């Protein structure tokens, strides 16, 4: 199809005979599954990985959680580690929403929808990560209000279910409404989305705070039982989220030619500089308390950073994370990071990897080591756990690709329309 033909098509698309939202979604699905060879290879590879993950999970359900390497000592592992990171990714998108809506940053306004798309995909990944961690997924309905028996407001886990699902619905509404209006060529009515945008700002903070409360509310786990956990979660989320979005914008520029203005990425870099510094200061403060005071409270940290009683399972992980975070932060502070440079990309990747470890394997696992009776049982994820996790990530990317494809199609069509007009 020639560029001209595509242009005409896009304009025609905006001529919108389909005046229903489901019709728009159906059209969008069609658009989002169109692409070149590279696109199809990407989608097929992701689908294949997702299928491997689905199969591994099905085996896990059939044979029991024994196929994971979790034990009664380390009863949460890779799944919950990924869940925690994913919540941060979802919450991080709010760092585009705040400049766009609270500070009326025009350029940020143009790309804020990318952050919301990332949030949607991340939340779906989080939900899947929790689902695969359940020993009895067939009893999932016990968690539903009315038909189940929800221990609300006492159990922090019920809060988490509520805030995560709420955040998903809010973002689906905002993204769906704004895209549909653009598609119809109508001006979005602020009444229908601005209140939800402001709600989503508070909500984004809440999802990560509640997720931190899940851990720091447990008195029996000294490594988690710290008031700094929620602020640390937020600070690191405001690094990993924006860093991921910067990468997404770069990939979009290369693959679809969707050119975001340069300013939003710069704003995000400034946010990352501040957030990462705060994150590192809090980490240092945490480590000081743990190591200077010593005693039983510092035992998990000792195991994590230096090994304990001949067990060193997490030592390589955490030092990789520390190295990634420090180098990444250093790169973010280089003037080059403000330009569209490789420095910027390297900094983003390093910080994402660093935070994924620090907040995942580096936070969840040491909470269980030593155990509450001070036994040391180590944990490394099993092949099944890696497969399922890879499957969830692949599905998340699949979903994100479809969402971005839809967004860029609608945006491109609108751009052409203005061009022709």
């Amino acid at each position, binding site marked *: 199809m020639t560029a001209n033909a595509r242009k005409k098509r896009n304009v025609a698309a905006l001529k919108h005979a389909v005046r229903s939202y489901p019709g728009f979604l159906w059209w969008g699905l069609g658009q989002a599954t169109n692409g070149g060879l590279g696109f199809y290879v990407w989608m097929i590879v992701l689908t294949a990985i997702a*299928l*491997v993950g689905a199969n591994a999970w099905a085996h896990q359900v059939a044979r029991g*959680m024994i196929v994971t390497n979790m034990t009664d000592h380390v009863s949460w592992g890779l799944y919950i580690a990924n869940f925690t990171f994913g919540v941060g990714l979802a919450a991080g998108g709010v760092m585009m929403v705040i400049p766009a809506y609270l500070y009326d940053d025009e350029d940020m306004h143009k790309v804020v929808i990318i952050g919301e798309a990332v949030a949607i995909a991340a939340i779906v990944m989080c939900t899947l990560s929790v689902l695969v*961690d359940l020993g*009895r997924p067939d*009893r999932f309905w*016990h968690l539903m209000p009315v038909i189940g028996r929800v221990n609300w407001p006492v*159990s922090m*886990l019920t809060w988490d279910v509520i805030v995560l699902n709420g955040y998903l619905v809010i973002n689906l509404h905002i993204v769906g409404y704004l895209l549909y209006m653009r598609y119809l060529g109508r001006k979005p009515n602020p009444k229908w989305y601005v209140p939800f945008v402001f709600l989503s700002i508070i909500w984004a903070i809440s999802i990560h705070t509640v997720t931190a409360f899940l851990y720091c509310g447990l008195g029996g786990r000294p490594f988690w039982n710290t008031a700094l956990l929620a602020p640390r979660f937020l600070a690191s989320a405001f690094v990993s989220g924006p860093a991921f979005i910067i990468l997404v914008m770069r990939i979009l520029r290369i693959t679809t030619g969707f050119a975001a203005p340069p300013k939003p990425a710069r704003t995000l870099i400034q946010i990352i500089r501040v957030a990462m510094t705060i994150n590192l200061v809090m980490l240092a403060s945490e480590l000081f308390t743990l190591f200077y005071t010593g005693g039983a409270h510092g035992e998990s940290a000792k195991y994590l950073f230096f090994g304990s009683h001949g067990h060193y399972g997490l030592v390589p992980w955490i030092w990789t994370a520390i190295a990634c975070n420090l180098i990444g932060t250093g790169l973010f502070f280089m003037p080059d990071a403000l330009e569209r440079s490789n420095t910027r990309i390297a900094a983003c990747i390093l910080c994402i990897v660093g935070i994924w470890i620090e907040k995942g394997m580096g936070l969840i696992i040491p909470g269980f080591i030593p155990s*509450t009776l001070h036994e040391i049982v180590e944990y490394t994820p099993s092949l099944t756990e890696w497969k399922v996790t890879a499957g969830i990530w692949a599905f998340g990317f699949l979903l994100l690709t479809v969402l971005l494809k839809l967004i860029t199609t609608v945006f491109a069509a609108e751009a052409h329309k203005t061009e022709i007009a």
Partner: protein
Amino acid sequence: MTTDNSFPQEPHDGEHLKPLLPILDQPSTRRTLLKTAGAALGLAAFGEALSPLMVIPENVSVDEFLQQHYKELTDEDKKKVFARLEAETKERFGADVTITDSKPIPGVRFAYAINVSKCNGNGKCMEACNKENNHHRGVDQSYIRVLEMTKGSMDMENGSTTYDHTVPQDDKFYLPVQCQQCDNPPCVSACPIEATWKEDDGIVVVDYNWCIGCRYCEAACPYHARRFNWELPEIPPEEVNPNQGYLSNRIRPQGAMEKCHFCLHRTREGRAPACQEACPTGARVFGDLNDPDSAINYVLKNKRVFVLKEELGTKPSFFYFFD
């Protein structure tokens, strides 16, 4: 997936239809076909990938799937549920068992105390627990862990649960730990679906058929008292304890949590818990806190008593004392 590539058109918008048709024509039909085929293939592959899930309808009957929370079951419901569970136990484990539902005795509040001076770490309590409670035989599961502690320290850091030598050792003392039946149980607060709760006689129980297996309670418990059924337990038919309680020692389903329940199917019928009965040293004292003449009250009034991790505010009903 037949129309997904055609963009929307207004039915009466003839002038738009015309120039667009050539574009729509060939490539889109081929692409649509390919996409339809791709979607069909993807769905088939997805179905195949998930096919191991087909064991769920085999293992989980419709009645089990729809079963309500213990507290919502009527006596009639319970009769049906227990009969179903008994039949399933016969089918899967080859044992004839009776499942009962002992209720808390009004006015009774159970508590446990361990005489640390007497306990010599022989581990008979763990063995008895394993047999009484139909634990998985393959992994020597038990609700009790006995810590071998170094004299001169109450720090569990210096303890070991994996000791394998003759007991007692001269420089050691022994500290058995099981569910402390807290009055302020962190596990009950953690559970998102009320699958675990504290009964009127102080025992914290689990509805094994309601638990979704998220293991948040296991993370919340400061005493390592909770266990997860990582797989279906294996027990030879002749070793299955046929006297089973719904909230206590019946064979637990795969994927659900379990914990010490003070042998409520025995203690609520006036018998001693299995671990106490098995203890050869007389270190274990069990009884009713509300009975002023009970042995447990004698211990609390006359001995130097302590609880584990008192600073956490869990208020255990489980005490330790020295002679």
